[in-house]
């Protein structure tokens, strides 16, 4: 079973991201479960959502404390919540930022993980360019597909189109693809390095 935890702020689409990820896995014929931390969140407040993916029915119903992958929609959350709690060295971490782990003072986190597992992608920037709005969630999902290879970009795109109809969906699909390509490129670079 793969367990993914997504951190964001109310309004950034962390809950929808987990749902879309579960739909992408479902499209691939797998079992998936997505759920938010349930709270009286307001816009801007820290939000956490979860997604489990497995080849068998998922019976467990509890929050994910030891994620296999972590998606962070807003790195400034590091000042408010224990973002990296339970994140082992095998885990993947995808950060939405135009900067690097070291520049954000998170070099230690990067060092702790296996090489190539910690990646930054400027999802908000990409979203601004493709959607005209700073909503990083679909771009991050594209990046996630590239980083982990657990779901395909095609499935992510299908899930996005189910969630957003018409041109909005297409713009989000473009954002996912752009982030996907960026992450692939980074992975290629780190593999060559």
């Amino acid at each position, binding site marked *: 079973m793969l367990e993914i935890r997504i951190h964001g702020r109310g309004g950034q689409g962390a809950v929808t991201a987990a749902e879309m990820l579960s739909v992408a896995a479902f499209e691939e014929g797998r079992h998936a479960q*997505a759920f938010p931390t349930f709270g009286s969140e307001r816009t801007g407040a820290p939000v956490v959502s979860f997604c489990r993916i497995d080849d068998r029915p998922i019976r467990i119903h*509890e929050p994910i404390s030891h994620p296999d992958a972590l998606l962070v929609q807003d790195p400034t959350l590091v000042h408010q919540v224990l973002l990296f709690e339970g994140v082992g060295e095998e885990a993947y971490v995808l950060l939405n930022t135009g900067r690097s782990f070291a520049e954000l003072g998170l070099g230690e986190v990067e060092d702790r993980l296996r090489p190539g597992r910690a990646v930054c992608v400027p999802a908000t920037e990409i979203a601004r360019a493709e959607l005209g709005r700073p909503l990083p969630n679909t771009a991050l999902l594209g990046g996630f597909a590239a980083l982990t290879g657990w779901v395909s970009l095609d499935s992510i795109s299908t899930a996005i189109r189910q969630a957003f109809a018409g041109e909005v969906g297409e713009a989000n699909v473009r954002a996912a693809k752009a982030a996907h390509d960026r992450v692939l490129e980074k992975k290629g670079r780190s593999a060559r390095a």
Partner: protein
Amino acid sequence: MPVRSQIEGSQAVARAVARCRPQVVAAYPISPQTHIVESLADLVRTGELDPCEYLMVESELGAMSACIGSSAMGSRTYTATASQGLLFMAEALFNASGLGLPIVMTVANRAIGAPINIWNDHSDSMSMRDSGWVQLFASSNQEAVDLHVQAFRLAERLSLPVMVCMDGFVLTHAVEQVDVPEQDEVDAFLPPFTPRQQLDPAQPVSIGAMVGPEAFTEVKYLMHARQMQALDEIPRIAADFEAAFGRPAGGLVRPYRTDDAETVVVALGSQVGTIEVVVDQLRDEGHPVGLLDVTCFRPWPRDEVRRALAGAANVVVLEKAFAVGAGGIVGQNTRLALAGTPTVVHDVVAGLGGRPVTAAAVRGLLDDVLAGRVDPHRLHFLGLRTDLVDGQLRRDAASVPGPHAESMLREAGVIGSGSH
């Protein structure tokens, strides 16, 4: 064929309810029930659910009262609520069951304040366990969907109200794979509503007369008798459902690996899946452990519970509510079922106010039970932060003024709630 979807529990339930063709839905918003009734409001608006009147009432008392009027008028009637909302309709709940009106209601289980808490536990449904409603608990979103379809048939067959309980947020807000029954399948399973009693100008009757000591006991006896009939009807409906839909759902209890089990956990709701995982682990390690999932809590299936548990040496009742000042609620009922047997029953309260019931915590508990470290004569609270309560008890003893909840939050260093 059913449509298999990756869908939020609330949306799935709303679609299943819509396919049961309720003619009147009256509801008042309360988290975590809102997604269900919002979705039904959409379906009414778009005409997908037609004919149906969606009443946006002014309170939960109004919601259940409108349901009473509608059901007495002979319409299939549905509502949903949770927590404080269920308590706010308490008076009308007893009225609906006393009048024998086959209303179906979803309870998206949530804690009851004070302190105010929007997260999941079973205090709400459990507080209404004696309201005369049938109470069915869903362990998954698939079961929640299936139980709703069965609930209408049960309610209308026996002319009594049915509450389908599903864990708030844990199930209502979880997106999972669910087979949502198709319209033709539901139509074949659930006949149109033929009311046993109805307000009709052509045949005027008075419903809700005052009954004095001369017959009140008899009226209440008949309510009880009808609930006892439900103990026979529920398994029949579950069998019919399985035959029609090709998957098991419902019934009174569902034993999981209880054959030859020496220790059996009794539980209701979404924690059942987590406990199954732990049971499998322990079985793999050679421990004879099992689980009894109680789907029907009211009426209480005493004989079935007894049959499933009587061979066990230890029973651990893991429940998301308790009777303050007394102990476990499901535990008390379980003891009743096991009267005269040597089986030892442990009452464990877990998952209050949204505290996750984790596999690790359940595993730890069962390890303790297997090692004889859990005193069966005491009420246990899984994962209780003894540092917090002991500190507060000390302050109480020293007569330090102030509200408990706030002092403990200060002690715990929690600012606001819900932060991860």
